[in-house]
């Protein structure tokens, strides 16, 4: 599903459909069962959940390490194929306020997750590839946490990723002493360990809430018997 087409009120209709058609006497029991199922379900509770879960849009970009270019990052390989969930955020390194604050929050998410953190990828994608090379982005995210993944690439490639995810960006304030700034999406995304896009979050969502949803996604994967 295209993130731009997210229906915020998806849950009510889902439950409504489950109850519709049940015998009147069983309706209450049915609703209760649905409610119970929802309690134990993997549906994210804190962000805007995307239903039904579908494969996350394509995200394949060059990745750099301290040793230099290190091939390509592919989101499905990093999640579905390795049983890990992921958070994905589109920003830029010359962003002094919101982006560092979000990555600092992610560091807290990681700390809150404890041992589960090893099963979550934290992915920062630049929307300013003219200034952000793969090496610049790598160094930028490494300031926060050495496990964070920073991605950049040629403009055309970044454009394709943004189009697939339905996220925009544009330059503002060009010519100012401080150089231009870039308007970027105000939400980040959660992908489950089956490579499905599951939720989006306001950038200022408390770390504990994000961590709670990630645990839910990871538990669901374990319950499904996924490796």
């Amino acid at each position, binding site marked *: 599903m295209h993130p731009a087409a997210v229906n915020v009120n998806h849950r009510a209709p889902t439950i409504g459909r489950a109850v519709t058609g049940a015998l009147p006497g069983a309706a209450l029991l049915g609703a209760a069962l649905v409610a119970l199922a929802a309690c134990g379900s993997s549906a994210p509770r804190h962000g805007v959940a995307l239903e039904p879960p579908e494969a996350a849009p394509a995200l394949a970009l060059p990745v750099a390490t301290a040793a230099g270019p290190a091939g390509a990052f592919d989101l499905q390989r990093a999640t579905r194929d390795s049983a890990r969930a992921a958070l994905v955020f589109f920003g830029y390194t010359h962003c002094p306020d919101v982006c560092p604050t979000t990555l600092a929050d992610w560091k807290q998410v990681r700390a809150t997750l404890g041992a589960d953190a090893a099963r979550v990828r934290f992915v920062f994608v630049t929307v300013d590839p003219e200034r952000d090379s793969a090496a610049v982005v790598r160094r*930028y995210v490494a300031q926060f946490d050495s496990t964070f993944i920073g991605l950049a690439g040629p403009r055309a490639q970044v454009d394709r990723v943004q189009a697939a995810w339905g996220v925009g960006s544009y330059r503002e304030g060009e010519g100012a002493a401080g150089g231009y700034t870039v308007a970027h999406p105000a939400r980040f995304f959660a992908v489950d360990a089956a490579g499905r896009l599951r939720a989006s979050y306001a950038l200022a969502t408390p770390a504990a809430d994000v961590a709670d949803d990630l645990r839910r996604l990871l538990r669901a994967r374990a319950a499904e018997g996924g490796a």
Partner: protein
Amino acid sequence: MTARTSDGPNGLDRPNGTRTRTWRAARAGALAAGAAVRLALLAGCGERAAGTVTVRDAWARPAAAGATGAVYLTLVNGTARPVAVVGAASRAARAAELHESMERGSGAAAMVHMHAVPRVEVAAGDSLVLRPGGRHLMLVGLAQPLVPGARVPVALVTAAGDSIRVEAVVRGF
């Protein structure tokens, strides 16, 4: 614009229907708490700093040399007159500007923007709070990396031509 708006109008509706708010306004903490802090600060100024403009709690996040950084602080106007902040300066960077992060739009299409704030008026007895997700002092082209524990000299320039100097401490993330 007065300093009271520095707490950020949450969910301000614009005539064209787009939603604009200081990013993180929702999380920024209760206004009441902010007011209490302000009162405490004013009380704390007491006789020593009565009638002056003081800056408290100046801090910055780590950033690489050449990169863009942000400084956060609280400016307390202990004078009986409004103080207008019209600029910033720092010898730690190529340029220093007062900026504000704003969120526009809603839902999946919401975007975060930054814009320069050319002038902020702080009423007598009021304070201007720069904090993550709202107003901040942007340092462009850092001469040195900002590493935790380092001190960054910055100054706020007033319309009266005064320079309010302070050293921001670089915190860890």
